[in-house]
């Protein structure tokens, strides 16, 4: 199995305050992984460092066989990493359709690439609102749009930070199904969310983070078998 992403000893600081103290992670192509942990433990920071948005101060990141920890964010994105960021970050002055089209690309040359139509099929609400400016959407619609926008780049690795934040139960369900379907198509996904049960059903492997350090790594089955573990590091 080819290694898609390999992270070793990742350390990151915001100014003078260090947040990550050596994160390691390894994902194979087609694999689904999660990052789990309480608020403020460094999940988002990990993601930002992978994407080059907050450059790491130490450690190695290898993506599709290349070292990327020193690359600019746009280079990394063009190598096929796409993110659904915390807080959505929709382009407020672009319409829904433009948000989807602006960065569309086929970066992994799959036979069934994402298109406007396919995204609209997945989220019919977006089709209805396709001419709305991005900031005139409900919170949930924005989340759908953020996911659609990331998919439109046909990434090798899709990263979702708070994948279902602000989504209604029915839509949330659709997202899980969608992620499952993507996984079935061989899409590699790194996902953060608070619905741990759903994540266990979806993902191959999990990484528990506490204060910027990896405290546990393992498969869904292993995690499920140790409720004490996730109660301690994630909560309820």
């Amino acid at each position, binding site marked *: 199995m080819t290694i898609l992403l390999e992270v070793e000893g990742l350390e990151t600081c915001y100014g003078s305050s260090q947040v990550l103290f050596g994160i390691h992670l390894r994902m194979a192509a087609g694999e689904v992984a999660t990052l789990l942990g309480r*608020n403020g*433990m460094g999940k988002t920071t990990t993601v930002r460092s992978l994407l080059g948005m907050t450059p790491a101060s130490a450690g190695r990141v290898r993506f599709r066989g290349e070292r990327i920890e020193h690359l600019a964010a746009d280079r990394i994105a063009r190598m096929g990493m796409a993110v659904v960021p915390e*807080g959505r970050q929709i382009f407020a002055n672009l319409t829904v359709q433009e948000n989807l089209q602006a960065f569309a690309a086929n970066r992994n040359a799959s036979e069934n690439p994402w298109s406007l139509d396919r995204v609209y099929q997945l989220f019919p609400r977006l089709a209805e609102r396709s001419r709305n400016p991005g900031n005139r959407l409900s*919170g*949930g*619609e924005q989340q759908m749009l953020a996911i659609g926008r990331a998919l439109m780049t046909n990434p090798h690795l899709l990263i979702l930070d708070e994948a279902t934040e*602000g989504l209604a139960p029915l839509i949330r369900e659709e997202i899980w199904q969608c992620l499952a379907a993507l996984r079935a198509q061989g899409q590699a996904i790194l996902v953060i969310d608070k619905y741990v049960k759903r994540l266990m059903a979806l993902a191959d492997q999990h990484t528990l983070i506490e204060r910027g350090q990896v405290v546990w790594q393992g498969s869904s089955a292993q995690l499920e078998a140790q409720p004490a573990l996730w109660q301690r590091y994630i909560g309820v």
Partner: protein
Amino acid sequence: MPPPLLQVQSLVKRFGGLTATDHASFAVQSGHIHALIGPNGAGKTTLIHQLSGALVPDAGQILFAGEAVERKPMPARVQAGLVRSYQITSIFKRLTVLENIALGVQARDGSSWRFWQPARNERARYAQAAEVAERVGLAAQLQQTAGLLAHGEQRQLEVALALATRPRMLLLDEPMAGMGPDESERMLQLLLQLRNDTTILLVEHDMDAVFRLADRISTLVFGKVIATGTPEEIRRNPDVRRAYLGDEAEEAA
């Protein structure tokens, strides 16, 4: 039954061709936690905007404590006790947690038309703020700069800001969004603790929380209130399940 604290009557709001609020009517009893649920884009946030005064409705009435408020500006409503929090975190990023909350306290605590006495010396106000911080679980972060808090902590501060104004009624737009399970739990405990003193209108997609908290639930679909009732009634309502809940009702039960 006493008259409701908040009464929404046939409220209408249009955005161009879209009717975001479509003759919505419901009432919130004093001391209740009243949940407002509905699919994404149903118009919940739009409704909260109209209740808080950020948007002016096109038609209909909003009665708060028996008084029509739909034409009043936002600050006047806050003074009357109707206070909101934001779905997208809106705090004072350069200030510390304590100072953030102290501003909220200041809003309700006497006049701010004071031009001479240093505000920093108002110990009572900062003490009050510290209390509020403690209630929402930010006691350890009092001197932390708000902008540097983690997402979840910022959400807690978001609620604290609203709480600091000692509202009679709180309008909370997805307070749990972006919180992990145990932070969610803490927020939930906080809201439970507020119940009775403070009436709450809660918009939330976390059904677990909604069903544990709510005294009454109204469901909004396409801007219309399709059902209002107890959690049990709502859970069983086939329209609500079709439009919103799906199978989650069972799961959360």
